Protein backbone atom coordinates (compact mmCIF):
# COMPACT_ATOMS: atom_id res chain seq x y z
CA UNK A 1 0.00 0.00 0.00
CA UNK A 2 2.90 2.33 0.78
CA UNK A 3 4.32 1.64 -2.66
CA UNK A 4 0.96 2.30 -4.20
CA UNK A 5 0.56 5.57 -2.35
CA UNK A 6 4.03 6.83 -3.22
CA UNK A 7 3.55 5.94 -6.88
CA UNK A 8 0.23 7.71 -6.91
CA UNK A 9 1.69 10.71 -5.15
CA UNK A 10 4.53 10.84 -7.70
CA UNK A 11 2.01 10.69 -10.49
CA UNK A 12 -0.13 13.36 -8.89
CA UNK A 13 2.93 15.58 -8.40
CA UNK A 14 3.86 15.25 -12.05
CA UNK A 15 0.33 15.84 -13.26
CA UNK A 16 0.27 19.66 -12.98
CA UNK A 17 3.57 19.89 -14.91
CA UNK A 18 2.25 17.65 -17.64
CA UNK A 19 -1.03 19.56 -17.78
CA UNK A 20 0.94 22.77 -18.11
CA UNK A 21 2.82 21.31 -21.09
CA UNK A 22 -0.47 20.28 -22.70
CA UNK A 23 -1.94 23.70 -22.07
CA UNK A 24 1.08 25.44 -23.53
CA UNK A 25 1.04 23.18 -26.56
CA UNK A 26 -2.65 23.82 -27.13
CA UNK A 27 -2.02 27.56 -27.04
CA UNK A 28 0.95 27.46 -29.38
CA UNK A 29 -0.07 24.80 -31.89
CA UNK A 30 -3.25 26.38 -33.27
CA UNK A 31 -1.63 29.81 -33.56
CA UNK A 32 1.07 28.49 -35.85
CA UNK A 33 -0.90 25.94 -37.79
CA UNK A 34 -4.02 27.99 -38.46
CA UNK A 35 -1.72 30.46 -40.18
CA UNK A 36 -1.29 27.95 -43.01
CA UNK A 37 -4.70 28.89 -44.32
CA UNK A 38 -7.77 26.78 -44.80
CA UNK A 39 -9.32 26.49 -48.22
CA UNK A 40 -11.20 23.22 -48.63
CA UNK A 41 -13.19 20.99 -46.38
CA UNK A 42 -10.33 18.51 -46.24
CA UNK A 43 -7.88 20.98 -44.74
CA UNK A 44 -7.45 20.63 -41.01
CA UNK A 45 -6.71 23.37 -38.48
CA UNK A 46 -3.62 21.42 -37.31
CA UNK A 47 -1.75 18.60 -39.02
CA UNK A 48 -3.58 15.37 -38.30
CA UNK A 49 -0.53 13.76 -36.70
CA UNK A 50 -0.12 16.72 -34.34
CA UNK A 51 -3.74 16.38 -33.34
CA UNK A 52 -3.10 12.69 -32.70
CA UNK A 53 -0.10 13.51 -30.50
CA UNK A 54 -2.10 16.02 -28.44
CA UNK A 55 -5.07 13.65 -28.16
CA UNK A 56 -2.94 10.71 -27.06
CA UNK A 57 -1.14 12.92 -24.56
CA UNK A 58 -4.46 13.80 -22.96
CA UNK A 59 -5.38 10.10 -22.89
CA UNK A 60 -2.07 9.25 -21.18
CA UNK A 61 -2.45 12.07 -18.65
CA UNK A 62 -5.98 10.91 -17.92
CA UNK A 63 -4.65 7.42 -17.29
CA UNK A 64 -2.12 8.79 -14.81
CA UNK A 65 -4.77 10.93 -13.14
CA UNK A 66 -7.11 7.94 -12.83
CA UNK A 67 -4.39 5.92 -11.12
CA UNK A 68 -3.66 8.77 -8.73
CA UNK A 69 -7.15 9.93 -7.88
CA UNK A 70 -9.63 7.11 -8.53
CA UNK A 71 -8.72 4.78 -5.67
CA UNK A 72 -11.83 2.70 -5.07
CA UNK A 73 -14.28 0.98 -7.39
CA UNK A 74 -17.36 3.15 -7.69
CA UNK A 75 -19.52 1.07 -10.00
CA UNK A 76 -18.82 -2.45 -8.69
CA UNK A 77 -22.49 -2.79 -7.73
CA UNK A 78 -23.77 -0.60 -10.54
CA UNK A 79 -24.21 3.15 -10.64
CA UNK A 80 -26.22 4.97 -8.01
CA UNK A 81 -29.59 5.87 -9.50
CA UNK A 82 -32.19 8.40 -8.44
CA UNK A 83 -35.63 7.31 -9.48
CA UNK A 84 -38.48 9.48 -10.55
CA UNK A 85 -41.82 7.72 -10.74
CA UNK A 86 -43.91 8.70 -13.76
CA UNK A 87 -47.42 7.24 -13.55
CA UNK A 88 -48.79 5.94 -16.83
CA UNK A 89 -45.45 5.83 -18.63
CA UNK A 90 -46.00 2.18 -19.50
CA UNK A 91 -49.17 3.09 -21.37
CA UNK A 92 -47.40 5.18 -24.02
CA UNK A 93 -45.55 2.09 -25.23
CA UNK A 94 -48.54 0.95 -27.28
CA UNK A 95 -49.01 4.18 -29.28
CA UNK A 96 -45.24 4.57 -29.71
CA UNK A 97 -45.02 1.00 -30.96
CA UNK A 98 -47.82 1.77 -33.43
CA UNK A 99 -45.89 4.83 -34.61
CA UNK A 100 -42.83 2.62 -35.13
CA UNK A 101 -44.80 0.06 -37.15
CA UNK A 102 -46.40 2.74 -39.32
CA UNK A 103 -43.04 4.44 -39.93
CA UNK A 104 -41.44 1.10 -40.84
CA UNK A 105 -44.28 0.23 -43.22
CA UNK A 106 -44.14 3.67 -44.84
CA UNK A 107 -40.37 3.52 -45.29
CA UNK A 108 -40.46 0.05 -46.80
CA UNK A 109 -43.22 1.16 -49.16
CA UNK A 110 -41.13 4.20 -50.16
CA UNK A 111 -38.17 1.94 -50.84
CA UNK A 112 -40.16 -0.44 -53.02
CA UNK A 113 -42.52 1.96 -54.78
CA UNK A 114 -40.56 5.20 -54.85
CA UNK A 115 -37.72 6.54 -56.95
CA UNK A 116 -34.71 4.22 -57.11
CA UNK A 117 -32.33 7.17 -56.98
CA UNK A 118 -30.97 6.96 -53.40
CA UNK A 119 -30.77 10.76 -53.18
CA UNK A 120 -34.47 11.18 -54.00
CA UNK A 121 -35.88 8.39 -51.83
CA UNK A 122 -36.41 8.85 -48.10
CA UNK A 123 -35.40 5.27 -47.19
CA UNK A 124 -31.56 5.27 -47.61
CA UNK A 125 -31.07 8.58 -45.75
CA UNK A 126 -33.41 7.44 -42.98
CA UNK A 127 -31.53 4.15 -42.57
CA UNK A 128 -27.93 5.36 -42.90
CA UNK A 129 -28.20 8.77 -41.26
CA UNK A 130 -31.17 8.74 -38.87
CA UNK A 131 -31.26 5.06 -37.88
CA UNK A 132 -27.53 4.30 -37.93
CA UNK A 133 -26.14 7.59 -36.60
CA UNK A 134 -28.81 9.84 -35.04
CA UNK A 135 -30.48 7.10 -32.99
CA UNK A 136 -27.21 5.98 -31.30
CA UNK A 137 -26.28 9.59 -30.53
CA UNK A 138 -29.76 10.35 -29.16
CA UNK A 139 -29.68 7.11 -27.15
CA UNK A 140 -26.40 8.12 -25.54
CA UNK A 141 -27.93 11.43 -24.48
CA UNK A 142 -31.53 10.69 -23.41
CA UNK A 143 -31.61 6.90 -23.15
CA UNK A 144 -32.93 4.11 -25.34
CA UNK A 145 -35.16 5.95 -27.82
CA UNK A 146 -35.46 2.95 -30.13
CA UNK A 147 -36.97 0.47 -27.66
CA UNK A 148 -40.48 1.98 -27.51
CA UNK A 149 -40.51 2.54 -31.30
CA UNK A 150 -39.05 -0.87 -32.23
CA UNK A 151 -41.51 -1.97 -34.92
CA UNK A 152 -40.85 -5.72 -34.89
CA UNK A 153 -40.96 -5.80 -31.11
CA UNK A 154 -44.31 -3.98 -31.22
CA UNK A 155 -45.64 -6.55 -33.71
CA UNK A 156 -44.21 -9.39 -31.61
CA UNK A 157 -45.84 -8.03 -28.46
CA UNK A 158 -49.16 -7.52 -30.22
CA UNK A 159 -49.00 -11.05 -31.62
CA UNK A 160 -48.17 -12.44 -28.18
CA UNK A 161 -51.05 -10.52 -26.63
CA UNK A 162 -53.46 -11.74 -29.32
CA UNK A 163 -52.22 -15.32 -28.98
CA UNK A 164 -52.74 -15.33 -25.24
CA UNK A 165 -56.27 -13.91 -25.67
CA UNK A 166 -57.07 -16.71 -28.11
CA UNK A 167 -55.55 -19.32 -25.87
CA UNK A 168 -52.77 -20.19 -28.33
CA UNK A 169 -49.95 -19.16 -26.05
CA UNK A 170 -47.19 -21.67 -25.41
CA UNK A 171 -43.99 -21.43 -23.43
CA UNK A 172 -41.06 -20.12 -25.50
CA UNK A 173 -38.01 -22.27 -26.07
CA UNK A 174 -34.98 -21.50 -23.89
CA UNK A 175 -32.47 -19.30 -25.75
CA UNK A 176 -29.68 -21.71 -26.75
CA UNK A 177 -26.34 -20.96 -25.13
CA UNK A 178 -24.49 -21.86 -28.35
CA UNK A 179 -26.27 -19.01 -30.12
CA UNK A 180 -24.73 -16.53 -27.67
CA UNK A 181 -24.25 -13.11 -29.26
CA UNK A 182 -24.00 -14.52 -32.81
CA UNK A 183 -27.33 -13.03 -34.03
CA UNK A 184 -26.19 -9.59 -32.92
CA UNK A 185 -22.72 -9.99 -34.39
CA UNK A 186 -24.03 -11.27 -37.72
CA UNK A 187 -26.68 -8.53 -37.86
CA UNK A 188 -24.28 -5.67 -37.16
CA UNK A 189 -21.43 -6.93 -39.34
CA UNK A 190 -23.91 -7.68 -42.13
CA UNK A 191 -25.39 -4.20 -41.91
CA UNK A 192 -21.91 -2.67 -41.98
CA UNK A 193 -21.04 -4.73 -45.06
CA UNK A 194 -24.24 -3.61 -46.74
CA UNK A 195 -23.46 0.03 -46.02
CA UNK A 196 -19.74 0.06 -46.71
CA UNK A 197 -18.92 -2.71 -49.17
CA UNK A 198 -21.97 -3.75 -51.20
CA UNK A 199 -22.20 -1.55 -54.29
CA UNK A 200 -26.02 -1.52 -54.26
CA UNK A 201 -26.23 -1.00 -50.52
CA UNK A 202 -28.01 2.33 -50.92
CA UNK A 203 -30.49 1.16 -53.58
CA UNK A 204 -33.93 1.81 -52.02
CA UNK A 205 -35.49 -1.47 -53.15
CA UNK A 206 -32.52 -3.47 -51.82
CA UNK A 207 -32.66 -1.70 -48.45
CA UNK A 208 -36.43 -2.20 -48.27
CA UNK A 209 -36.23 -5.94 -49.03
CA UNK A 210 -33.45 -6.44 -46.48
CA UNK A 211 -35.43 -4.48 -43.88
CA UNK A 212 -38.35 -6.87 -44.45
CA UNK A 213 -35.99 -9.85 -44.21
CA UNK A 214 -34.53 -8.54 -40.95
CA UNK A 215 -38.01 -7.92 -39.50
CA UNK A 216 -39.04 -11.44 -40.52
CA UNK A 217 -36.03 -12.95 -38.76
CA UNK A 218 -36.83 -10.96 -35.63
CA UNK A 219 -40.44 -12.15 -35.65
CA UNK A 220 -39.25 -15.74 -36.04
CA UNK A 221 -36.79 -15.30 -33.17
CA UNK A 222 -39.50 -13.81 -30.95
CA UNK A 223 -41.91 -16.61 -31.88
CA UNK A 224 -39.33 -19.23 -30.92
CA UNK A 225 -37.68 -17.73 -27.85
CA UNK A 226 -40.18 -15.16 -26.65
CA UNK A 227 -40.22 -11.41 -27.28
CA UNK A 228 -38.33 -10.29 -24.14
CA UNK A 229 -35.48 -12.79 -24.47
CA UNK A 230 -35.02 -12.38 -28.24
CA UNK A 231 -35.11 -8.57 -28.02
CA UNK A 232 -32.59 -8.69 -25.18
CA UNK A 233 -30.18 -11.10 -26.85
CA UNK A 234 -30.93 -11.59 -30.55
CA UNK A 235 -32.16 -8.30 -32.05
CA UNK A 236 -28.94 -6.76 -33.37
CA UNK A 237 -30.22 -3.19 -33.57
CA UNK A 238 -32.03 -3.28 -30.23
CA UNK A 239 -28.78 -4.48 -28.64
CA UNK A 240 -26.70 -1.93 -30.57
CA UNK A 241 -28.84 1.01 -29.44
CA UNK A 242 -29.06 -0.34 -25.88
CA UNK A 243 -25.27 -0.31 -25.68
CA UNK A 244 -25.21 3.42 -26.41
CA UNK A 245 -28.20 4.03 -24.13
CA UNK A 246 -26.15 2.56 -21.28
CA UNK A 247 -23.90 5.62 -21.55
CA UNK A 248 -26.82 8.01 -21.05
CA UNK A 249 -27.42 9.74 -17.73
CA UNK A 250 -31.09 8.69 -18.01
CA UNK A 251 -32.62 5.25 -17.88
CA UNK A 252 -36.27 4.74 -18.76
CA UNK A 253 -38.48 1.94 -17.47
CA UNK A 254 -42.20 1.25 -17.37
CA UNK A 255 -42.31 2.76 -13.88
CA UNK A 256 -40.51 5.99 -14.65
CA UNK A 257 -37.11 7.56 -15.08
CA UNK A 258 -33.79 7.03 -13.30
CA UNK A 259 -30.87 9.45 -13.25
CA UNK A 260 -27.29 8.22 -12.95
CA UNK A 261 -23.73 9.24 -13.73
CA UNK A 262 -23.04 9.43 -17.48
CA UNK A 263 -21.27 6.36 -18.91
CA UNK A 264 -21.70 4.45 -15.63
CA UNK A 265 -24.59 2.39 -16.98
CA UNK A 266 -22.13 0.57 -19.25
CA UNK A 267 -20.87 -1.32 -16.19
CA UNK A 268 -24.22 -3.12 -16.08
CA UNK A 269 -24.13 -4.40 -19.67
CA UNK A 270 -24.43 -8.17 -19.79
CA UNK A 271 -21.18 -9.58 -21.25
CA UNK A 272 -23.13 -12.54 -22.62
CA UNK A 273 -24.90 -10.09 -24.94
CA UNK A 274 -22.37 -7.30 -25.27
CA UNK A 275 -19.49 -9.66 -25.88
CA UNK A 276 -15.98 -8.62 -26.89
CA UNK A 277 -16.76 -9.65 -30.46
CA UNK A 278 -19.84 -7.43 -30.57
CA UNK A 279 -18.31 -4.29 -29.09
CA UNK A 280 -15.09 -4.61 -31.10
CA UNK A 281 -17.25 -5.01 -34.21
CA UNK A 282 -19.07 -1.80 -33.26
CA UNK A 283 -15.72 0.00 -33.32
CA UNK A 284 -14.41 -1.91 -36.33
CA UNK A 285 -17.37 -1.13 -38.61
CA UNK A 286 -16.89 2.61 -38.20
CA UNK A 287 -13.12 2.21 -38.46
CA UNK A 288 -13.48 0.53 -41.82
CA UNK A 289 -15.69 3.38 -43.01
CA UNK A 290 -12.78 5.73 -42.33
CA UNK A 291 -10.18 3.29 -43.66
CA UNK A 292 -12.08 2.70 -46.89
CA UNK A 293 -11.96 6.44 -47.60
CA UNK A 294 -8.27 6.78 -46.74
CA UNK A 295 -5.54 7.40 -49.27
CA UNK A 296 -3.90 4.14 -48.24
CA UNK A 297 -6.96 2.06 -49.11
CA UNK A 298 -7.40 4.10 -52.28
CA UNK A 299 -3.86 3.25 -53.34
CA UNK A 300 -4.40 -0.43 -52.51
CA UNK A 301 -7.63 -0.40 -54.54
CA UNK A 302 -5.90 1.18 -57.51
CA UNK A 303 -3.30 -1.57 -57.49
CA UNK A 304 -5.41 -4.60 -56.58
CA UNK A 305 -8.84 -4.08 -58.18
CA UNK A 306 -7.53 -4.24 -61.78
CA UNK A 307 -5.68 -7.45 -60.94
CA UNK A 308 -8.82 -8.98 -59.40
CA UNK A 309 -10.76 -7.83 -62.44
CA UNK A 310 -8.26 -9.47 -64.76
CA UNK A 311 -8.54 -12.84 -63.04
CA UNK A 312 -12.24 -12.92 -63.85
CA UNK A 313 -14.00 -11.20 -60.98
CA UNK A 314 -15.20 -8.36 -63.17
CA UNK A 315 -15.47 -4.65 -62.55
CA UNK A 316 -18.32 -4.91 -60.04
CA UNK A 317 -17.24 -7.90 -58.01
CA UNK A 318 -13.54 -6.99 -57.72
CA UNK A 319 -13.97 -3.86 -55.51
CA UNK A 320 -16.49 -5.70 -53.35
CA UNK A 321 -14.09 -8.60 -52.82
CA UNK A 322 -11.31 -6.19 -51.86
CA UNK A 323 -13.74 -4.25 -49.66
CA UNK A 324 -14.78 -7.45 -47.91
CA UNK A 325 -11.15 -8.35 -47.25
CA UNK A 326 -10.43 -4.84 -45.94
CA UNK A 327 -13.57 -4.95 -43.80
CA UNK A 328 -12.59 -8.30 -42.30
CA UNK A 329 -9.06 -6.98 -41.72
CA UNK A 330 -10.32 -3.93 -39.80
CA UNK A 331 -12.74 -5.98 -37.69
CA UNK A 332 -9.91 -8.40 -36.93
CA UNK A 333 -7.49 -5.58 -36.13
CA UNK A 334 -9.78 -4.00 -33.54
CA UNK A 335 -10.61 -7.39 -32.02
CA UNK A 336 -6.90 -8.28 -31.96
CA UNK A 337 -6.01 -5.00 -30.24
CA UNK A 338 -8.63 -5.64 -27.58
CA UNK A 339 -7.42 -9.19 -27.03
CA UNK A 340 -3.89 -7.82 -26.73
CA UNK A 341 -5.06 -5.52 -23.93
CA UNK A 342 -6.71 -8.41 -22.10
CA UNK A 343 -3.95 -10.94 -22.60
CA UNK A 344 -1.99 -10.15 -19.41
CA UNK A 345 -5.22 -10.70 -17.49
CA UNK A 346 -5.87 -14.10 -19.08
CA UNK A 347 -3.58 -15.86 -16.61
CA UNK A 348 -5.33 -14.35 -13.62
CA UNK A 349 -8.93 -14.38 -14.77
CA UNK A 350 -9.07 -16.90 -17.61
CA UNK A 351 -9.18 -15.78 -21.22
CA UNK A 352 -12.95 -15.93 -21.54
CA UNK A 353 -13.66 -13.94 -18.42
CA UNK A 354 -10.87 -11.42 -19.04
CA UNK A 355 -12.28 -10.79 -22.49
CA UNK A 356 -15.82 -10.23 -21.31
CA UNK A 357 -15.02 -8.34 -18.10
CA UNK A 358 -13.66 -5.33 -19.97
CA UNK A 359 -15.75 -5.44 -23.16
CA UNK A 360 -18.06 -2.67 -21.93
CA UNK A 361 -15.10 -0.28 -21.79
CA UNK A 362 -15.15 -0.12 -25.60
CA UNK A 363 -18.74 1.14 -25.77
CA UNK A 364 -17.83 4.82 -25.21
CA UNK A 365 -15.12 4.41 -27.83
CA UNK A 366 -17.66 3.00 -30.26
CA UNK A 367 -19.82 6.07 -29.63
CA UNK A 368 -16.80 8.35 -30.06
CA UNK A 369 -15.98 6.68 -33.38
CA UNK A 370 -19.59 7.04 -34.56
CA UNK A 371 -19.71 10.70 -33.55
CA UNK A 372 -16.26 11.56 -34.87
CA UNK A 373 -16.79 9.89 -38.22
CA UNK A 374 -20.41 10.81 -38.82
CA UNK A 375 -20.98 14.15 -37.08
CA UNK A 376 -20.58 15.93 -40.43
CA UNK A 377 -22.94 13.46 -42.08
CA UNK A 378 -25.44 14.00 -39.28
CA UNK A 379 -25.29 17.78 -39.46
CA UNK A 380 -25.34 18.13 -43.24
CA UNK A 381 -26.97 15.02 -44.67
CA UNK A 382 -29.41 15.03 -41.75
CA UNK A 383 -30.88 18.25 -43.15
CA UNK A 384 -31.76 16.30 -46.27
CA UNK A 385 -34.55 14.66 -44.26
CA UNK A 386 -36.53 17.94 -44.41
CA UNK A 387 -37.14 17.82 -48.19
CA UNK A 388 -37.24 14.01 -48.24
CA UNK A 389 -40.08 13.88 -45.70
CA UNK A 390 -42.02 16.26 -47.92
CA UNK A 391 -41.36 14.12 -50.99
CA UNK A 392 -40.57 10.65 -49.59
CA UNK A 393 -40.99 8.73 -52.84
CA UNK A 394 -39.15 11.22 -55.01
CA UNK A 395 -42.31 11.61 -57.06
CA UNK A 396 -42.34 15.39 -57.14
CA UNK A 397 -44.83 15.70 -54.26
CA UNK A 398 -44.52 18.42 -51.63
CA UNK A 399 -46.71 17.30 -48.71
CA UNK A 400 -45.07 19.55 -46.12
CA UNK A 401 -44.10 22.44 -48.37
CA UNK A 402 -40.39 21.82 -47.66
CA UNK A 403 -39.40 19.82 -50.75
CA UNK A 404 -37.18 22.63 -52.03
CA UNK A 405 -35.19 23.05 -48.79
CA UNK A 406 -31.44 22.88 -49.46
CA UNK A 407 -28.62 21.84 -47.15
CA UNK A 408 -27.03 24.70 -45.22
CA UNK A 409 -23.30 23.96 -45.35
CA UNK A 410 -22.48 26.98 -43.16
CA UNK A 411 -23.95 25.45 -40.01
CA UNK A 412 -20.48 24.46 -38.86
CA UNK A 413 -17.05 25.20 -40.30
CA UNK A 414 -14.66 22.38 -41.24
CA UNK A 415 -12.29 23.55 -38.51
CA UNK A 416 -14.97 23.50 -35.82
CA UNK A 417 -16.07 20.11 -37.09
CA UNK A 418 -12.55 18.77 -36.70
CA UNK A 419 -12.26 20.15 -33.17
CA UNK A 420 -15.53 18.40 -32.29
CA UNK A 421 -14.26 15.17 -33.83
CA UNK A 422 -10.99 15.25 -31.89
CA UNK A 423 -12.78 16.21 -28.66
CA UNK A 424 -15.27 13.33 -28.84
CA UNK A 425 -12.50 10.87 -29.71
CA UNK A 426 -10.49 11.95 -26.67
CA UNK A 427 -13.53 11.99 -24.38
CA UNK A 428 -14.58 8.54 -25.57
CA UNK A 429 -11.17 7.04 -24.88
CA UNK A 430 -10.87 8.74 -21.49
CA UNK A 431 -14.33 7.39 -20.59
CA UNK A 432 -13.22 3.94 -21.73
CA UNK A 433 -10.10 4.16 -19.57
CA UNK A 434 -12.18 5.25 -16.58
CA UNK A 435 -14.53 2.28 -17.00
CA UNK A 436 -11.59 -0.10 -17.40
CA UNK A 437 -9.86 1.37 -14.34
CA UNK A 438 -13.02 1.02 -12.24
CA UNK A 439 -13.53 -2.58 -13.35
CA UNK A 440 -9.86 -3.34 -12.61
CA UNK A 441 -10.27 -1.85 -9.12
CA UNK A 442 -13.25 -4.08 -8.44
CA UNK A 443 -11.34 -7.11 -9.75
CA UNK A 444 -7.92 -6.52 -8.21
CA UNK A 445 -8.67 -4.45 -5.14
CA UNK A 446 -5.77 -2.03 -4.90
CA UNK A 447 -5.12 1.02 -7.00
CA UNK A 448 -1.57 0.04 -7.93
CA UNK A 449 -2.45 -3.44 -9.10
CA UNK A 450 -5.46 -2.10 -10.94
CA UNK A 451 -3.37 0.56 -12.66
CA UNK A 452 -0.65 -1.91 -13.64
CA UNK A 453 -3.19 -4.35 -15.00
CA UNK A 454 -4.42 -1.57 -17.26
CA UNK A 455 -1.07 -0.74 -18.89
CA UNK A 456 -1.90 -2.84 -21.97
CA UNK A 457 -5.32 -1.18 -22.09
CA UNK A 458 -3.56 2.18 -22.18
CA UNK A 459 -1.50 1.00 -25.15
CA UNK A 460 -4.68 -0.04 -26.94
CA UNK A 461 -6.44 3.23 -26.13
CA UNK A 462 -3.47 5.19 -27.47
CA UNK A 463 -3.45 2.99 -30.58
CA UNK A 464 -7.21 3.50 -31.11
CA UNK A 465 -6.91 7.25 -30.56
CA UNK A 466 -4.11 7.49 -33.12
CA UNK A 467 -5.99 5.23 -35.50
CA UNK A 468 -9.15 7.30 -35.12
CA UNK A 469 -7.31 10.54 -35.86
CA UNK A 470 -5.45 8.92 -38.77
CA UNK A 471 -8.72 7.71 -40.28
CA UNK A 472 -10.33 11.12 -39.84
CA UNK A 473 -7.37 12.99 -41.28
CA UNK A 474 -6.67 10.73 -44.22
Amino acid sequence: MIGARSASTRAARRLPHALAVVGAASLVAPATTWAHGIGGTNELPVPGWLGAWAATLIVVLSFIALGAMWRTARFADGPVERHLRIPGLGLVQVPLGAVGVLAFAGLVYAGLAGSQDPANNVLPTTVYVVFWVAVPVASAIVGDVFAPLNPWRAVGRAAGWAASRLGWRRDPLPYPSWLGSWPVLVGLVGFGWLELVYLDGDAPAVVARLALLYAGVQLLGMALFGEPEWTRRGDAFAVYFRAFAALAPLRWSRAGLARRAPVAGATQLDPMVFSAAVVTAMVGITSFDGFSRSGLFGAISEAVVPVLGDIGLGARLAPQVLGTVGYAFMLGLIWGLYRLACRPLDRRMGARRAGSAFAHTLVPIALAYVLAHYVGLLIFQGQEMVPLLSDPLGSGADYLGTADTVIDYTLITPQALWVVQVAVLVLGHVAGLALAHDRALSEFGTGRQAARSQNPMLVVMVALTSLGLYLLSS
Partner: protein
Amino acid sequence: MIVLAHFGHWYESVLYLVPLVVVVLALWWSGRGDDESGDATGGVAVDAGRTNDG
Protein backbone atom coordinates in the same frame (compact mmCIF):
# COMPACT_ATOMS: atom_id res chain seq x y z
CA MET B 1 14.04 2.37 -53.43
CA ILE B 2 10.54 3.15 -54.68
CA VAL B 3 9.34 3.15 -51.10
CA LEU B 4 12.05 5.60 -50.10
CA ALA B 5 11.35 7.77 -53.12
CA HIS B 6 7.74 8.08 -51.96
CA PHE B 7 8.80 9.02 -48.43
CA GLY B 8 7.10 12.38 -48.80
CA HIS B 9 3.75 10.65 -49.29
CA TRP B 10 3.79 8.34 -46.30
CA TYR B 11 6.03 9.86 -43.66
CA GLU B 12 3.07 11.66 -42.06
CA SER B 13 1.35 8.32 -41.60
CA VAL B 14 4.36 7.11 -39.61
CA LEU B 15 4.07 10.12 -37.32
CA TYR B 16 0.74 8.73 -36.06
CA LEU B 17 2.64 5.76 -34.67
CA VAL B 18 5.01 7.90 -32.57
CA PRO B 19 2.73 8.21 -29.50
CA LEU B 20 2.16 4.46 -29.54
CA VAL B 21 5.89 3.74 -29.70
CA VAL B 22 6.58 6.25 -26.93
CA VAL B 23 3.92 4.78 -24.63
CA VAL B 24 5.08 1.21 -25.25
CA LEU B 25 8.68 2.15 -24.53
CA ALA B 26 7.72 4.14 -21.43
CA LEU B 27 5.67 1.27 -20.01
CA TRP B 28 8.42 -1.22 -20.83
CA TRP B 29 10.98 1.01 -19.11
CA SER B 30 8.68 1.53 -16.12
CA GLY B 31 8.00 -2.22 -15.81
CA ARG B 32 11.72 -2.96 -16.07
CA GLY B 33 12.45 -0.56 -13.21
CA ASP B 34 9.76 -2.16 -11.07
CA ASP B 35 11.06 -5.65 -11.80
CA GLU B 36 14.60 -4.65 -10.81
CA SER B 37 13.37 -3.24 -7.52
CA GLY B 38 11.35 -6.40 -6.88
CA ASP B 39 8.10 -4.49 -7.12
CA ALA B 40 6.48 -6.64 -9.75
CA THR B 41 2.83 -7.42 -9.26
CA GLY B 42 2.36 -11.02 -8.31
CA GLY B 43 -0.68 -13.18 -8.74
CA VAL B 44 -3.78 -11.45 -7.53
CA ALA B 45 -6.82 -13.10 -6.16
CA VAL B 46 -9.81 -12.42 -8.31
CA ASP B 47 -13.35 -11.83 -7.12
CA ALA B 48 -16.19 -14.09 -7.96
CA GLY B 49 -17.92 -13.47 -11.27
CA ARG B 50 -19.86 -10.29 -11.79
CA THR B 51 -23.54 -10.25 -12.34
CA ASN B 52 -24.80 -7.86 -14.92
CA ASP B 53 -28.31 -7.40 -16.12
CA GLY B 54 -27.92 -5.14 -19.12
